[in-house]
């Protein structure tokens, strides 16, 4: 009964349902081949890594009542930077320098996040616009870096972060999981989570309770930037090239959707990382399912629409009440008359 009430119950159900569908459509849902997991499920897990990372950062930003539209562009930039530097390497396979370059790309993304945070917290611009600036300009910068072309790299260590396997598990997914665990620890093992929710709940009250709202806000944007950067690296490593034009294009929408599906309200306050994870996996699985069951491209959006509608209705307690029978008696007709149409 209580589990039915849980906001995450229905998203989880839909996720499982979609996975089951894939079980039937796919040749191998999950098997072990030459020493690592292979099949649809591993593909989904690996493919979901970038979205997971981005949505994770988005969760924190949204918890403070903000929003980060720039994630896609940050992905593009970090990917571009990494591939540009790697392609200049003498030996693209030297693990050391690749790691260094990855570090550089991440730092760049953190700085970009800092820029967002500064605009929001210090200058006091509404988040949606503050991050819109980087969303627009950032992709331009990425295109400058790659000169509008696609930069190819032949670096196996770099490719590993997306396509490699560790302990039979896809590395990309492990990275995402690691990030999730870290974030959970960061927010729930410290007081950060509480302060975040408080700032998101009411900036005024938080300020009067002596919380350094600005610092916290800035931090969330920095984290979001960093995670987006990481996502960008995985994205580009996955195709062994930097595609500054389509990297992370429109991912902000999916990320926000994942967060909201996960039960975090856009006005800020309470946030649920577990929810976000389910949300992200759900969206990724949905994408795969569409292809697997062979929905014609022209009908793809309708298909998604149906799922999302089902989702948002299933999440509404009121709707469930109305459908699965109400406990309370409907208001007496006496006043119904007084209710204006």
């Amino acid at each position: 009964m209580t589990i039915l009430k849980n906001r995450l119950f229905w998203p989880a159900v839909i996720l499982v349902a979609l996975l089951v569908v894939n079980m039937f459509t796919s040749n191998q849902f999950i098997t072990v081949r030459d020493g690592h997991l292979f099949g649809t499920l591993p593909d989904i897990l690996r493919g979901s890594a970038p979205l997971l990372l981005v949505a994770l950062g988005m969760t924190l930003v949204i918890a403070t009542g903000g929003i980060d539209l720039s994630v896609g562009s940050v992905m593009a930039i970090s990917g571009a930077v990494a591939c540009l530097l790697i392609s200049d390497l003498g030996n693209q396979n030297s693990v050391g320098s690749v790691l260094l370059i990855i570090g550089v790309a991440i730092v760049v993304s953190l700085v970009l996040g800092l820029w967002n945070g500064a605009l929001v917290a210090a200058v006091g611009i509404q988040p949606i616009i503050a991050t819109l600036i980087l969303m627009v300009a950032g992709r331009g910068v990425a295109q400058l870096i790659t000169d509008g072309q696609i930069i190819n790299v032949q670096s196996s260590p770099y490719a590993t972060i997306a396509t490699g396997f560790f302990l039979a598990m896809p590395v990309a997914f492990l990275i995402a999981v690691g990030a999730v665990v870290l974030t959970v620890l960061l927010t729930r093992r410290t007081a950060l989570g509480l302060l975040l929710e408080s700032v998101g709940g009411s900036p005024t009250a938080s300020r009067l309770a002596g919380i350094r709202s600005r610092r916290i806000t800035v931090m969330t944007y920095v984290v979001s930037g960093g995670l987006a950067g990481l996502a960008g690296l995985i994205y580009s490593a996955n195709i062994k090239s930097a595609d500054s034009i389509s990297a992370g294009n429109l991912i902000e929408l999916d990320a926000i959707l994942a967060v909201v599906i996960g039960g975090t309200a856009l006005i800020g306050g309470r946030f649920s990382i577990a929810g976000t994870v389910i949300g992200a996996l759900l969206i990724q699985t949905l994408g795969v399912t569409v292809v697997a069951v062979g929905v014609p491209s022209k009908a793809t959006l309708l298909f998604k629409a149906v799922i999302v509608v089902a989702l948002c209705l299933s999440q509404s307690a009121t709707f469930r009440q109305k459908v699965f029978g109400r406990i309370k008696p409907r208001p007496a007709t006496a006043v119904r008359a007084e209710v204006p149409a």
Partner: protein
Amino acid sequence: MGEPSPVLEMTGIRKVFPGVVALDGVDFRLFPGEIHALMGENGAGKSTLIKVLTGVYDIDGGDITLGGAAVRFTGPLQSQKAGVSTVYQEVNLCTNLSVAENIFIGREPRRLGRIQWGLMRKRAAELLARLDLNLDVSASLDTYSLAIQQMVAIARAVDVSARVLILDEPTSSLDASEVEQLFKVMRRLKEEGVAILFVSHFLDQVYEVSDRLTVLRNGKLIGEYKTAELPQVQLVEKMIGKELAVLDDLENKAQRTRAKTAEAAPILSATGLGRTGAIAPFDLTINAGEVVGLAGLLGSGRTELARLLFGADRADSGTLQIDGKDVTLRSPQAAMKHGIAFSSENRRTEGILGELTVRENIILALQASRGWTRPIPRRKQDELVDKYIKALQIRPADPEREVRMLSGGNQQKVLLARWLITEPRLLIIDEPTRGIDVGAKAEIQKLVAELSDGGVAVLFVSAELEEVLRLSHKIEVLRDRRLVEELENTEGVDADRIMQTIASGATS
């Protein structure tokens, strides 16, 4: 008067919230032309009864008849249409709209569907004038203090010609004079045959206006009585279900004898501190173990003064010394570093965080001062929280309940607890007893007394002058947002004396 048929009758009302039975088989009658007080401790179910009646919550059981017909409202809109006009607890207005709009929205004067702004402002101004308020009615409501906002809410409610008028703790932050204005209006309406339901924790007020009262305890009906026939003491017993020792024990300690603070160095001393448009430059010193009370009419600038000392607003003139060292308080954190705590009068927008649990709300300030990297161990949290839930009798005593689900008074207690666990050296409390029931109020007053005996300095702001007099060693009188006089709270200093100062505005 004889007994005509009640205009409103509620029978066997039941309302269950997850985890609590807020109302359990409550009957309630309201007769035309009477003022009926609804009494009960914090969390007794008063507001819930009102919200159930007006359709904010739907009922789990029971019947409501209004003017003989069975009704069940689907929302305030419907109840209003049916002639039930309500001021809910807490100020429920849209602070982003102008004063005039807040009074008239939903029933603006129109010609051909076009709102007549001029006329609307004129009417609003007149209406407020009748309550002795002259405000700029086209200013947005958030430019006014909470008390003003409360008056506006009242103005809105009394203006509609209703059969039933419901006032849930309308006087919680009003000063004597405003209360008088309100009572005048209530009496007038009563003459006109309006049935008035009135909730207040001020017994004297209840005895002054109400003809009849109904007592609730823990969501159950205790009884309905004619006010004249029920002595205060008995009323209190019925409300809390036991005799209230603390109360009279505090009654007879009228003047507080100053604790051993003779040699105490001033914790805080302000010279010429001020903020243009908010409060004129003032001098003020607060010693350890001293209770300093702020007295003044509403809008006199008490809150503004308090906020300056906490760094909630920045002073733009004067200097502030803490422990003899010059400091400028740029932010609340800065003040908290010096051991200053400030509990705002506006608990709803500046105080509690509704979505967070009682526990989280209570530890918030302490946690903030420690910084996010040093979380308070859960065990420690639970200890502290339990301690204060007991000390302040927060009900329901469930630390994991979301604060917005608590009754108004209990929310206030949570807010106090938040600051008490920071163990401040200077505790600034603005209207700390707003909406708190007699028992708890006495407890809190006792607490303040104990704190000061323990060497904590307290800046005590309250609209209730008696309270200020009872607790303070020293009383600062404000008027028109300037500090006009400082009084040692010795023999001979009483309400009249202070009102006198306020009236004459003797500038020291």
